[in-house]
């Protein structure tokens, strides 16, 4: 199944893109996807990164076809 992944802040720089469509196995959870992408793009401080699935900041869910997953790092500039 296909999911759309959006990257924010410095994660977009690690990934070299702000958005991509990925093919993932059915049964993949948001956390599984996070682990995959953290390894693929060498995202640092992964524990601090929050995921939003379909605009909800709760990553304890199984993904479905067409879901949108946002990778959100904390940042503090001002």
């Amino acid at each position, binding site marked *: 199944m296909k999911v759309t992944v*959006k990257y*924010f*802040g*410095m994660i977009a720089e690690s990934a070299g893109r*702000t958005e991509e469509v990925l093919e993932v196995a059915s049964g993949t959870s948001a956390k599984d996807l996070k682990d995959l992408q953290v390894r693929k793009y060498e995202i*640092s*401080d992964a*524990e*601090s990164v*929050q995921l*939003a699935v379909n*605009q*909800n*900041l*709760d990553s304890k869910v199984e993904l479905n076809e067409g879901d949108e997953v*946002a990778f*959100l*790092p*904390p*940042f*503090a*500039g*001002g």
Partner: protein
Amino acid sequence: MRYDRQIKLDEVGVSGQEKLRNASVLIVGVGGLGCPAAQYLVGAGIGRVGLIDHDRVSLSNLHRQLLFTEEDPGKSKAAVAKLRLQQINSEVEIDVFEEPLSIDNAENLFQLYDIILDGTDNFETKYLINDACILTEKPWVYASIYKNEGQLSVFNYQEGPSYRCLFPKTTRQNISCEATGVLGVTPGILGTMQAAEVLKMILGAGNVLSGKLKLINILSGQDQLLAISKRVEEIEKIKNEGIIPVRIECKISDETKFYLDIREIFEQPRINSGKVLQIPLSEIEDRLEEIPKQEDVLVFCQSGKRSKKVVDLLKTQFEFNNLINVEGGVETIIDE
């Protein structure tokens, strides 16, 4: 009369203007976010505005902190801001605190105001604001910037989520606007939106951004609104244990080597071990005599870019041949 154009709105009216006059707001940090927020809140006729900032104006602030002028570098931000804000609206009472927000003063200060506005640029102070707001039962308006992106939310409003519900774990990657660069308009837009959230809360108008995180991208023009779930345990922990300080400090991995940290003092993580001389880039040419010439000195900053410039400058102009740039920046020399 001065407030006529906003009193005309149904959301304000004469009674709304009275609410604004009876309200008080504390602005923590009078920088890129705090300046525009203060200008609009004072313009709108908030009764009392507090400004807390220990920092001084520098020339590189002027492109985005438009309360300050070319006459101000070196002067206290909070004091200068008060002068300018009083010229905008002399009816507003303005309190000035020329000190850092700390675990010792946060709760007492917050008690004096209805709403707290976060104009800070580091995680330690954002968690401090969060915890002190939980303990004093005050809502706060959060904003953060990374390059051309911004985050905006209202925390601790009417039993809503807190900053710890959004980010229970922090990161050591505190990258300031000074380090990454930022267009002046980005904090201008975010700070102005923070002021709008303050006005909405006081007036009881519209939908306050509580339980929601607004993401703004100045370049793409694409904004997002995400729902934040409340983590009751994060809030209860603060109510039970009090403020939990977030210290972003690290140990250096090789304590035998001599290091020169040229980052500004607010840049994190701070290094608290080993032989590390700390001279911010802005002071380096005045403090050359402190840098040893007899042993190897590893120079580092956040990314390796500024430290490379320093190594080149000191070598070509001041005959330092013992300096080595740490190419990957601070993250490559600290213990994980």
